[in-house]
């Protein structure tokens, strides 16, 4: 059992959620309630990571993060080490790869709120922030929860992007999925089996927790 890989996988999942969820709520709501020029294009761009093969996405991210790109150079001069093949680079890549998994469910969640309900909140004297906090967010909650689960599950299972951008550095960028592949290559079926079972257990536990949570917090139930 590669405990370091498990730790990295869990940190990567949690970190991706922490970065993406606030942004996703802001952006998903924006797409749900506002109409603007070029909205269709923006929605298409948000979805691109979903349809792109992970290795293709990883390839472009690697180019973008690399020492020859302005982003890569800026990061290196600020932090002191290159962005690719580091945990930070992996986290950033994971966040980008998960954009559609976060934005879409949240957007649907906010879209499901009738516009009259939003207007009623304003007519009750709630300020825009109170409207969001007390009416919109609780009603869009199932969408936000779905976004978090999908992101976590997807991050645990991500392989192509991780390998392209992060490589396979033990203790730094080797996630559990990569470690399983690594062990299989070394004919270490036992370790691979234990780690695969661990991932399976985490996935089932995640789903059970979220189902229980959504039962308890769903707006339509008492």
């Amino acid at each position: 059992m590669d405990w370091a890989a498990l730790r990295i996988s869990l940190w990567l999942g949690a970190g991706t959620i922490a970065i993406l969820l606030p942004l996703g709520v802001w952006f998903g709501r924006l797409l749900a309630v506002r109409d603007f020029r070029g909205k269709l294009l923006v929605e298409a761009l948000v979805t691109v990571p979903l349809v792109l093969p992970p290795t293709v996405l990883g390839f472009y991210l690697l180019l973008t993060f690399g020492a020859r790109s302005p982003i890569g150079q800026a990061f290196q001069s600020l932090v002191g080490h290159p962005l690719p093949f580091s945990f930070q680079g992996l986290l950033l890549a994971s966040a980008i790869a998960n954009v559609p998994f976060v934005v879409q469910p949240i957007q649907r969640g906010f879209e499901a709120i009738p516009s009259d309900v939003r207007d009623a909140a304003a007519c009750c004297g709630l300020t825009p922030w109170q409207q969001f906090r007390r009416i919109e967010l609780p009603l869009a909650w199932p969408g936000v929860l779905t976004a978090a689960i999908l992101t976590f599950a997807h991050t645990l299972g991500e392989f192509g992007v991780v390998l392209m951008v992060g490589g396979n550095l033990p203790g730094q960028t080797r996630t559990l999925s990569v470690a399983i592949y690594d062990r299989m290559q070394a004919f270490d079926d036992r370790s691979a089996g234990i780690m695969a079972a661990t991932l399976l257990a985490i996935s089932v536990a995640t789903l059970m927790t979220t189902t229980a949570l959504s039962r308890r917090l769903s707006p339509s139930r008492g």
Partner: protein
Amino acid sequence: MADRPLSVALRQGGPIPLDVEFTCHSGEVLAIFGPSGSGKTTILRSVAGLYKPSHASVYSGADTWTDTETGTFVPPYRRAVGLVFQEYALFPHLTAVHNVMTALGHRPRVERRDKAETLLNLVHLGGQLSRRPSELSGGERQRVALARALAREPAVLLLDEPFAAVDRSVRRRLQNEIDSLRRTLDMPLILVTHDFDDVVRLATHVLMLEQGRAVACGSISALMSRPDLSWLREAVGLGSVFDATVAKLHADRGLVELTFDGGILLAPARHVDVNAAVRVRIPAREVVLATSAPAGLSLHNVLSGTVTAVHTDTAFETVVVQLAVGRVELLAEVTRDAVGRLGISAGQHLHALIKSVSIELGQ
């Protein structure tokens, strides 16, 4: 409380054409009446600040809510407006009492619960405090929406098709409740409806809307006796509406005696008290004219009056005769042939035989 009239002027060419101007005082009920798609709801939304027409002014007493001339626009959450949405728009994740409490943000936290319960008791929902909207019937949801609108302690109460989604029997009860409620509330009340029944039962003033334009605006009795509103006539039948007071009960005959500014009427009614104020509606089709007083009739009411106007409607082959009975204008719809035979003209003295009288408990 001092009168805090709502003055509204809205004008724009598109996308939703609007051209209306009205003032509604405390204690008045203005019904905005018109076919669907005529812009009724847009007017309410403009008053609440949920919509901003290109040229608009909305004043509540001395407060300016919207004035496109000066660029003033107070956001909806800072306008003292109580709005009851057509589909009620309750917050589905909150219980009835929390729905109402949401609109009590201007009150100290400790008072909110009590105040919300008081309001729900007022609309007869004291027993359903902790139900969620999905556990309430249509009529109950409407009451929660009403309590929530009142919780804001609004300077104006707006009702958007308040009875559209409830069945007939519930509708009657809600109409009566709103009618009795509005007499205790000292604020302008605006009611959007496409059902003339609501207008007759609740309104003191009417604004008739056609494609965003006010085709008529005024007190209910003034508008009901305008024979030129032919589409209205087509929709509901022309008639006269006026206020009366219950003078006597004839319980044995199932009748009540009403006095009004023009005489006495007998009307079928039960469950009313002496001195109760009622609104009388006499459809123009239910009035027969005679040049001399007839005798031996099955009907109860014969009033005499003077013809003030004769309106011929070529489209309907009918004539509407306007008759002054005391200070009330009575309308009678007769054929053109009858007008010729009786030689009806303005200034003539006639007897009006009234076949049916309907009364509503009014103010």
